[in-house]
């Protein structure tokens, strides 16, 4: 498949992917592992063929909403995964998924997929390193939540997780969209209601970004919430592993950075400030990095971000 088609389908899935999945439409992307733009069969044979030099250290890279794993790519064709492979011996595994589905649905699917990956991988896995960009980080957190509840053993291989531009406390742009559509829908005018109906077509995944809803029960209250402020997050960062948070900020001014961050995710959300304050996230200061001058898309393929990821990965437990 061509890159343009892949990218178009990714955007379509991000916008209405839940509808596509619900109506059994073949344009819906199903969660799978990718290498060199091609799906990897989740079987012993498929994995052995795709990763002939499989390392015991595996990095799983989860992209964000409305994009594919190509978002990680530098202009020279490398990415965080391939650089970790060459410099630190990780085997990079790229996840592709329908980002229009609820984060909880993708989290459940990822937990199941990682469980199978650990069982079928060509050699015993020593370290499994999830790296999530934007929504991908929330999908990783959701997968960790479900795996903990079900006692899945792949979590034993996870020592750390890296989040790049992940809205841990939600994205204000989506919350604003939610308020505007509620107001438009409440006006007794057929035209404003039509606009509200069209705006409400946005996918479950996008709606989940508002308050970073990771579980089904978090989603249930979405219709009642109208606050523009960060919600208190009910799902803590998994205490058994280290968490590394990277935030981008277009402004060097701390107030503007807190408000706008990388334009989509405020620094306070990407660095889980409120969660840390409320004791829901044990993250040491050295595990948080804010990079000025970086927008939300650029943060997925930036040299400084990679250097930071590499530095963390080189650290001993």
């Amino acid at each position, binding site marked *: 498949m061509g890159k343009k088609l892949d990218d178009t389908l990714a955007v379509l899935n991000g916008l209405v992917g839940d509808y596509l999945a619900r*109506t059994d439409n073949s*344009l819906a992307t199903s969660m799978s592992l990718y290498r060199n733009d091609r799906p990897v069969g989740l079987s012993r044979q*498929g994995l052995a063929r795709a990763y002939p030099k499989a390392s015991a250290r595996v990095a799983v890279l989860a992209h964000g909403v409305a994009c594919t794993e190509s978002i990680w790519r530098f202009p020279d064709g490398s990415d965080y995964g391939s650089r970790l492979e060459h410099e630190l011996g990780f085997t990079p595994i790229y996840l592709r998924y329908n980002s229009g589905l609820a984060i909880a649905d993708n989290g459940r699917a990822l937990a199941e997929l990682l469980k199978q990956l650990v069982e079928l991988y060509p050699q015993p896995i020593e370290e499994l390193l999830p790296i999530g960009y934007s929504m991908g980080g929330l999908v990783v957190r959701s997968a960790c939540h479900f795996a903990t509840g079900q006692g899945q053993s792949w979590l034993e291989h996870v020592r750390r997780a890296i989040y790049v531009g992940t809205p841990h406390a939600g994205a204000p742009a989506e919350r604003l969209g939610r308020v505007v559509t509620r107001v438009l829908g409440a006006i007794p005018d057929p035209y404003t209601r039509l606009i509200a109906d069209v705006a409400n077509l946005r996918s479950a995944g996008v709606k989940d970004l508002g308050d970073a809803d990771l579980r089904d029960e978090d989603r249930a209250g979405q219709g009642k919430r109208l606050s523009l402020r960060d919600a208190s997050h009910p799902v803590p960062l998994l205490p058994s592993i280290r968490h590394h948070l990277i935030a981008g900020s277009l402004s060097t001014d701390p107030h503007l950075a807190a408000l706008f961050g990388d334009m989509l995710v405020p620094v306070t959300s990407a660095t889980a400030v409120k969660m840390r304050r409320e004791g829901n996230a044990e993250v040491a200061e050295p595990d948080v990095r804010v990079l000025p001058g970086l927008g939300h898309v650029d943060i997925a393929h930036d040299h400084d971000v990679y250097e930071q990821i590499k530095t963390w990965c080189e650290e001993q437990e």
Partner: protein
Amino acid sequence: MADIKQWRGLRALLEDAVEQGASAVERVHVATAKRPFEILKRLPPIGKWVEGIEAVHDTILAGAYGSVRVVNRVVGKALDVALDAFDDARDGDHPDDAAGAASPDTAKTPVSAKTPDDEAGP
């Protein structure tokens, strides 16, 4: 290039979009037209006449939007038949592909036509 499954998906999505778009515009149309009718119906000398005109208007409106939906479904079915025919013709040209065997030019085969284990390595 998109494969036949994706063309089918696109067809279904466009059909859904036209169907639901027509219904949404119809709701707005009905609600907008209702306003002047409601005002005119309150005028005693013409109230009864307006009720009749409104009924005729609503019937024509329902017929017009209904025909959009019917034509949309017919076009959808026709496209389905055309895609089936295209798929059959392609299978006739490449019987090995239809049976699921790996073709020599695997790299050019659409991804969905391959079994997962046939996927290329790095």
